[in-house]
């Protein structure tokens, strides 16, 4: 049958969203969805190299450059979730319920352990932009700033083991809690700030550059995601009875 190759970030796969959406899409469109889940950076690179048909990523600034460079076309918002800053129960830095920027400043000022993904992922890019926004610089060589270069779950795990803070998307946090069977020695410290929104988009790989990509199928997939049906499906997706993604389809 027809097959569509999607390159996406680990969060959509790790949370089980794609396992949930793929059969629905296949049923509607008669297209089998295959996906490669990796870091956002690598997913974009696969698109650039014409090795997939469609992308679902969450790194708005890179995505814009990507479209400008002509690697992708027809970017559409699909959904969002939000980021939170988490830390140990004891909250040694005392940032709980503080504003986003004062929390970050406190961590940097008092040199509390902060785990960063440091992997160029959407989450990492968001984190770096927050440091820039709040402290005018990105921590790098500091002893307290631990860059894992790994996925979100591994980074949360590191924060737990080292009793430090980290920035995560809410979906992965729920997943992490589920994995640890409730006994999470971590709490949400900062949430709800406007700059903590995490936007996912679907981008079609540019057929003009990559003649072999199945643009028609990619279009069908994107159309379905932003359709009523697709949006409802995303909204209905639940992990541990919590909604992870909020559909917000709109053409860019």
């Amino acid at each position, binding site marked *: 049958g027809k097959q569509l*190759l999607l390159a996406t970030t*680990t969060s959509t*796969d*790790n949370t089980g969203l794609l396992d949930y959406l793929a059969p629905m899409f296949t049923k509607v469109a008669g297209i089998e969805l*295959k*996906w*490669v*889940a990796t870091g956002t950076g690598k997913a974009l690179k696969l698109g650039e*190299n*014409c*090795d997939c048909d469609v992308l679902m990523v969450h790194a708005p600034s890179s995505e814009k450059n990507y479209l400008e460079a002509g690697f992708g076309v027809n970017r559409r918002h699909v959904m969002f979730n939000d980021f939170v800053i988490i830390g140990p129960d004891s909250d040694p830095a005392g940032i709980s319920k503080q504003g986003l920027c004062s929390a970050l400043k406190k961590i940097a000022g008092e040199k509390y352990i902060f785990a960063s993904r440091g992997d160029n992922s959407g989450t990492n890019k968001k984190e770096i932009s927050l440091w820039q926004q709040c402290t005018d610089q990105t921590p790098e060589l500091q002893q307290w700033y631990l860059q894992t270069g*790994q*996925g979100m*779950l*591994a980074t949360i*795990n590191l924060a737990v083991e080292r009793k430090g803070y980290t920035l995560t998307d809410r979906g992965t946090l729920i*997943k*992490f809690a589920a*994995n*640890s069977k409730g006994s999470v020695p971590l709490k949400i410290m900062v949430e709800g700030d406007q700059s903590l929104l995490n936007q996912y988009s679907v981008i079609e790989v540019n057929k003009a550059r*990559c003649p*072999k990509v199945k643009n028609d199928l990619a279009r069908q997939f994107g159309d379905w995601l932003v359709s009523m049906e697709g949006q409802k499906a995303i909204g209905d997706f639940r992990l541990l009875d919590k909604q992870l993604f909020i559909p917000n389809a709109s053409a860019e």
Partner: protein
Amino acid sequence: MEFILEGLVKACQLLVQGDRETYSAIFATVKVSSISMTVSLLLGIPLGYLLGYLSFPGKKGVRTVVDTMLALPTVFIGLVVYAFISSRGPLGEAGLLFTLTGIAIGQCILALPIVIALTATSVESLDRVLRLTLKSLGASPLQIFMTSIWEARMGLLIAATTATGRVLTEVGISMMVGGNIKWHTRTITTAIAMETSKGQFATGIALGLVLLIMAFTINLALSTLRRRV
């Protein structure tokens, strides 16, 4: 700690209850590693034999290069193979990206140096009188090859076992070239890596045990064979 025990239980469940995803990954692993091992043994044993048997200028250099290739990181091999078979690469037309064949190509590159280096050492450690004896009985170069290989069979068996262990456990190539696509190119090791990155440690352990059981089966068969020869 408890996830290890959990993993043990889960491994049994997966195997006994015939979990479809697990069996799909087992199947992919078996398929891809049999291809890569067959090719690398067919190529590697003769090459290793020549390297161990012949003496030619620059032999030490070749050995050093082969030994160095034992330290080829799998992700590196994955990247290089990807460069060649990606749509924009020179072999892009063949459509090998995200296929088991693509993985097998990478795994051959991984296994070949092991087979060559260990075969060469085994052949070198054969008694120098063996060669004399074979020549003295009128063996042709091909017959000398076949008999030397047979005399060195214990060494070759361990070469094959080591290479198989390497191929079965590698992740980098399978991930990069295969893409870990469910039902298609997801092998046991990419599944372990994925489950682990999802925090499903028990599933990771379970899949690791599945792989070990596979390896144990192979080795049990080989050791029965070894007892007979």
